[in-house]
């Protein structure tokens, strides 16, 4: 069985994000980029499943500009067998939204025919938390999102997923092929060692375009402006409930 892992190149989580002076988007020049932390967990889970014998091959995929190949090399250095790079130059005014990403991944999945697609639950730049779910819907495959534990049964072609939900942990059983999105507590991603990084250089990255996959990436949403959060104003200590009501009515105008 093959596992397809989708990864995303995002601004490194430790970087202070700033808005560009022209307010068209967030500053990404001269800024450190890395693999989305949830995607690292997804790659790690796929590798563990392969090491446990439940899968034969782990394929990493990403959608992005030429530099996204770095992210794929990370996945390969961690242990993925090969990678697919869907080339797309980002336009800050029309970023790729989850629905389009899901459509592209669907096309890749239909080509690769994996038994399992694993993604991070959300990307730390847009925090959408939609791609995995939409992908499952488009493929008409079952989904196990916010996974904190995954057990694969190869003979029965089933995956048992423990999901972190508001009320606690929900355990569901999915028939393969299925889509799983990872949550933080699923695993601790491994370090890529120097020898593995060197090995990764010779692993194959297949390059395709959205046109090759017959996916229309036109977006019907446009980003008009990005602003920094307004600075928090100092709080005011009031002396009575009457004063509070007065301020709520006349200043904040919420009553």
């Amino acid at each position, binding site marked *: 069985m093959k596992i397809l892992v989708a990864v995303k190149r995002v601004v490194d989580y*430790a970087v202070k994000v700033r808005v560009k002076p022209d307010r068209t988007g967030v500053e990404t020049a001269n800024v450190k980029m890395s693999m989305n932390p949830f995607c690292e967990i997804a790659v790690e889970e796929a590798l563990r499943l392969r090491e446990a014998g439940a899968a034969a091959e782990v394929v990493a995929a990403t959608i992005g500009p030429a530099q996204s190949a770095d992210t794929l090399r990370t996945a390969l250095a961690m242990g993925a067998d090969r990678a697919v790079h869907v080339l797309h130059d980002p336009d800050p005014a029309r970023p790729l939204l989850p629905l389009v990403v899901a459509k592209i991944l669907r096309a890749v999945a239909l080509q690769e025919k994996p038994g399992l697609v694993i993604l991070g639950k959300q990307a730390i730049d847009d925090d959408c938390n939609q791609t995995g779910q939409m992908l499952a819907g488009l493929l008409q495959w079952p989904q196990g999102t916010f996974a904190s534990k995954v057990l694969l049964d190869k003979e029965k072609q089933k995956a048992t997923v423990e999901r972190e939900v508001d009320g606690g942990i929900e355990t569901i059983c999915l028939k393969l092929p299925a889509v799983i999105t990872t949550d933080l507590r699923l695993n601790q991603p*491994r370090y890529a060692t120097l020898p593995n990084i060197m090995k990764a250089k010779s692993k194959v990255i297949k390059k395709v375009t959205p046109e090759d996959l017959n996916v229309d990436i036109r977006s019907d949403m446009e980003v008009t402006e990005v602003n920094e959060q307004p600075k928090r104003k100092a709080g005011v200590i009031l002396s009575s409930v009457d004063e509070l009501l007065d301020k709520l009515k006349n200043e904040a105008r919420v009553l």
Partner: protein
Amino acid sequence: MHRAIRAAAAAAGRGLSSARGASPRSPGAPAWGAIRWLCSGREALSYDVVIVGAGPAGLAAAIRLKQLCRAADADLSVCVLEKGSEVGAHVLSGNVFEPRALDELIPKWRQEDAPIRVPVSSDKFWLLTKNQAWTLPSPFDNKGNYVISLSQLVRWMATKAEELGVEVYPGFAASEILYDENQIVTGVATNDVGIAKDGTKRETFQPGVELRGRITLLAEGCRGSLSEKIIRNHKLRERGQGQHQTYAIGIKEIWEIEEGKHEPGSVIHTVGWPLDTKTYGGSFLYHLDDRQLAIGLVVALNYRNPFLSPYDEFQKFKQHPAVRKLLEGGTAVQYGARTLNEGGFQSIPYPVFPGGAIIGCSAGFLNVPKIKGTHTAMKSGMLAAEATFQALIEGSSMELYWENIKKSWIWEELRTARNYRPAFEYGFVPGMALSALERYVFKGKSPYTLKHGKPDHEATDAANRHTPIQYPKPDGQITFDVPTSLYSYFKVEVMCLPNNIFILYSNPSFLWYRSNTNHEHDQPPHLRLRDPTVPERINLPVYAGPESRYCPARVYEYVTDEKGDPKLHINAQNCLHCKACDIKDPKQNIEWTVPEGGGGPGYTVM
């Protein structure tokens, strides 16, 4: 989280180009020039040359080696290890760049998109008092120089190196020197990763890897951890120019200022306030492009008053009317700190050891009166590369590196500059007077060579000879507390000392990650105390715990434990890898060792 992985991405991605066309060095050698065998439980990779540190010296050496190979139709495999998560992440410098060495290394750099775009347009020198700025004749001559971000330059140099076939691996920290049975250095080993705070192996444990090199070049920057060990073990200071090294700490911020206030290429240096006449140091304000301003304060680490906090002096400096007005309306974008060498000519060690050599600031070639060390660091890397090439191809001795340094412009330049800094041992006014004498009368041909004073760590007076300095509270607009400079969340702690009460501020509504510093949380602290009782026995009672003040990341704090006794708490996670503690600790009890690769600051425009 997993900087090593991130680093691997960047490395592996950029490393793609190095996999091509390497001519076989020995039958059956894989294309990337590494042979592996298992030795002492660790995997070992072999290269002809292993370079520790992807800074200007390390990369200049790597580039020069590959150029020499091309010219001679030979091939040498070259590997550069870098502890930062990406090349440039740990590089911080003023920087007014003198292109002398780069002109020799890559003569066509102007046509190759080098991030050297802003020529120096004006050069001012001010003497500051609390409220005034007096213009003095500028002792600098920066015609032909450029205002740059060294972090950016070094990233560009790394791409040039990789184009030539150098393998650059950021995210890997060289923590150990490898020796053979004859005590000859045979390479370095990276540290084991995935060890928990208590020393046990975590789930993600990976043993370090040995990188064996026929020649090893150490280019770790000022006070490099491996370099210091080699210098001590091989007595390289005594065998060189003889004097100990002296240091300063540079604290720097990059600001984006208002359009009307920005003059690209404007260079200003100041002396005087806020430092007193007994403390050597000064500030710099360099205008880059894109409305960016590099602003910093350099304080010599042989200061006497243990209550001095270079970070707070810097914040104070920013409040000077002439400086404040530049910063008002602007935003602080990045913050960082790093120590630098001030020993100059008198402190140059003999830089060759069996199996390799020390290059760049790890040896110490900074020209103090010019306040420039990048050009000499690069030149030293190039000279070492030339000696290395000859040693590996023709079998000559690495001693040639030392000979070449003495014949080069590095030597001449540092010799001419040798008396400026030591003159200040006699005080500020004598220092200025002697400097004027050097510059205008002797013009570098002075018949004497002044000596340095006490080593920096011995220069600290006991706390009872000074009064604590009351630093003004940060205003959050121009001046900031350390947590704001480092990152957001921080606990408020009250440190109670026998005579004084110190309060650490916190401002949790800010979400600044200005230094982008972070380390994997669950790892043993990399700042080691040789004797764990010394802080509470000596540092605190005698010197009032100076480490809690000179560290620009507030790694060291004295907190009261349950019994009410003060205890040193080390927040190793904040560390900016500046090495001030390794230098200034009065009993030299603090040892800076290298943490897991990929941690530390994330400078991009410093």
